[in-house]
């Protein structure tokens, strides 16, 4: 049943990448508990616009948990503290009446703030461009059933491929490492015969790019797995390490 709560938001406001940011508090009354977190921010933004103030800039698009565009550090957790949830799927019924909610952008050296809660995640695209693909051109490929693939491998590849590239893993990591993101792609393609051929070269190229872009090292804290909205397992990092080591041995 629909209820409403009163909350206080502490939101990070930063006009542009180079200027100093600060927390600004906003009191919100009668927030419907059936609304999503982003709908609550829409209501606040419409109020700010009516008050002739600058609305809060934040990233979002599909609002059904699949595009990976939404972000936000909510009360110290990427996408809030609910498991397997993106910010757009987080609903206000998960908060208490009278609660103060702190909202920050992703904090990671490789994801600079653009404005307010919006960050630049272009580094993830660059990592994929370095090798996160199978090198085939359009056309001239064999029939889809020409190479049988075990259902177990296909399912595991699918689990890895569920990554939405939102950046929560790097944002959650105390070292700012992108290992889970890289591992998910390396693992997906290494599990399939089509991607197997370039497995080692891919791992090497993607890890080198990750290092170059200023992401930190992995120290196996497991924070990435805990905060990943798609529950991508850190066992993929082990597979990445195997691929990476075998590439190094062959050098």
């Amino acid at each position, binding site marked *: 049943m629909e209820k409403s709560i009163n909350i206080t938001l502490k939101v990070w406001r930063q006009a542009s990448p180079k200027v100093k940011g600060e927390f600004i508090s906003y009191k919100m009354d009668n927030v*419907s508990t*059936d*609304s*999503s977190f982003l*709908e*609550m921010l*829409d209501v606040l933004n*419409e109020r700010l*616009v*009516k008050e*002739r103030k600058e*609305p809060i*800039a934040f*990233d*979002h*698009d*599909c*609002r*059904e*948990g*699949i*595009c*990976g*565009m939404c972000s936000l550090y909510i009360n110290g957790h990427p996408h809030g503290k609910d498991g397997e*949830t993106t910010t757009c*799927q987080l*609903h206000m019924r998960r908060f208490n009446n009278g609660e103060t909610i702190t909202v920050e952008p992703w904090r990671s050296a490789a994801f600079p703030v*653009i404005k307010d809660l*919006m960050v630049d995640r*272009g580094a993830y*695209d660059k990592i994929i*461009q370095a090798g*996160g*693909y*199978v*090198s*085939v*051109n*359009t*056309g001239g*490929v*064999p029939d*889809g*059933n020409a*190479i049988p*693939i*075990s*259902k177990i491998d*296909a*399912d595991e*590849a*699918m689990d890895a*491929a*569920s990554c939405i*590239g939102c950046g929560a893993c790097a944002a959650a990591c105390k070292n700012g490492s992108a290992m889970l993101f890289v591992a998910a792609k390396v693992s*997906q*393609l290494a599990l*399939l015969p*089509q*991607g197997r051929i370039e497995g080692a070269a891919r791992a090497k190229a993607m890890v080198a790019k990750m290092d170059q872009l200023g992401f930190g090292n992995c120290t196996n804290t497991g924070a990435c797995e805990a905060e990943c909205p798609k529950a991508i397992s850190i066992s993929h990092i082990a597979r990445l390490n195997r691929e990476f080591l075998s590439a190094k041995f062959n050098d």
Partner: protein
Amino acid sequence: MAKKQDTTTVDAPQIDAKIPAGPLAEKWSNYKAHQKLVNPANKRRLDIIVVGTGLAGASAAASLAELGFNVLNFCIQDSPRRAHSIAAQGGINAAKNYQNDGDSVYRLFYDTLKGGDYRAREANVHRLAEVSNSIIDQCVAQGVPFAREYGGLLDNRSFGGAQVSRTFYAKGQTGQQLLLGAYSALSRQVGKGAVKLYSRYEMLDVVVVDGRARGIIARNLVTGKVERFSAHAVVVGSGGYGNAFFLSTNAMTSNASAAIQMYKKGAYFANPAYAQIHPTCIPVHGEYQSKLTLMSESLRNDGRIWVPKKKEDAEAIRAGKKKATDLSEDERDYYLERRYPAFGNLVPRDVASRAAKERCDAGFGVGNTGLAVYLDFSSSIQRLGEETIRARYGNLFQMYDKIVDENPYKTPMMIYPAIHYTMGGVWVDYELQTSVKGLFCIGEANFSDHGANRLGASALMQGLADGYFVLPYTIQNYLADQIQAPRLSTDLPEFNEAEKAMHTKIEKIMKIQGDRTVDSIHRELGLVMWDFVGMGRTKEGLEHALERIKEIRKTFWTKVYVPGLSADLNVELEKALRVADFIEIGDLMARDALMREESCGGHFREEYQTPDGEALRNDEEYSFASCWKFNGDGEEPTLLKEPLVYEFVKRQQRNYKA
């Protein structure tokens, strides 16, 4: 009320779609065998702008770059991987016949044509069915993890409007996986330098030089700067216009602006009235709501749709005095199974949506608004076990639970129709070229293959068909004549004027400083669209809608308030520019719906129905694609017709009963 267009005269100007001659099954092969090509050395000298990175845009950009063209690719989100194709859930059709259940290229062609209520081109739809198999092969080669059987071969599921299982899928995330496949192919070309990627850019206008599209004006959404880009051809894959309804299953940035600007530069806009209302969405629940969430059509494989048989039960449920699970089998009306025994819960989307509306309008709806029906998995869970259902639809059930806060394994889901996809779009000929030379349109943004209604799992097929296997051929037939054309300077007067016009438009919006938020005007437009240009349309309703849209346009241009600066990151300004164009598309939709005095597919005019409430087509008078030509702001557009000639298939009233 505007003067009524004369629509039925035979001498209305007609348009040629350049369909190749010859037998249906040989048209595409013949076209490819005789079209002009560009040799590799010349490809390097030609630049192509591709707007959009969804299934159509990303696959086109990647394929064109692989061939050797220089590609400039524009993306509204921060990464091409986030284009809204990613949200497609259920699957992609192909005529592989892996299940040995009688499928073939012809049957996929026929089902798609029939599903579109015989308002698509035969030749286009046949080509689509022909290339469908190559798409599956391509995606497998890219490492798309399609669902597989224990023997290692690809699995299929069924979708609406077909009696075979031809839908390939990757859990409930097929669109995501296909898009990531196209994105990986695109990323490979970006890494090689063959594609230059512009993310967080929005196309504002197309630049036409000497009658040919030679560039675009785009706004850098981070800096607010309006920039110019030139090329030898422009390809637009910017998606559909469903967000004219404010509440839709589209993403928040999905918009019609690129399409409207193309229309204003001379590209015809075809069949704007054909919009798809998807039957299985989570019902509307509050005023603050920003979007609607789709529950995949694949759920209709195992879910049964029903409402209470007795009105008293429906009333008791709405009042919270009874629950769905309190009703016994014989107190439930499985109305799709009752009305359509042959297809049952798997009737096409337009039929399922109208049937839900009919029951709710008659007072049998559930939920606290009465605008919902049940989608019930209890008999499937009994038959197959909860684990099997979880494996098939786990992510969808979880999504439902998060939004509605109810467990669909225990209690039936509630669903209601919502706007989801637009079959209409920018008119293109057989080569996917618009009525402006050198301007191409692909994917949902064009109008080509789905007629008046799209079957499930066909959008992904069409987007990828256009991008991987059609456009990379047909665009060469155009570019072969452009190899002598130089790279144009963006200092040409045509670029100056286009940029100046955009600056003027933006400054005009910024200066209004009224008292209405952009969202409040968009919401007002959406309600008009849903009430009068939605599932059931009438002459009076549409005339009223046109009046209301005129008022909303006036409200927008006199009362909107946009804060901040134009030359800065300004989300309110982005939204305002889009809403200005949604108002124009809303007008075109209502106008087209009023003109089309028949019911077909997603376009249902209440005046034209059979005694048992099915859509009543009028093939004598309306067997054409309606193409609207822009005549200037404030002027009535002109209607042109592309006659739909059926040479190979006999049209019938769609029948999903027997």
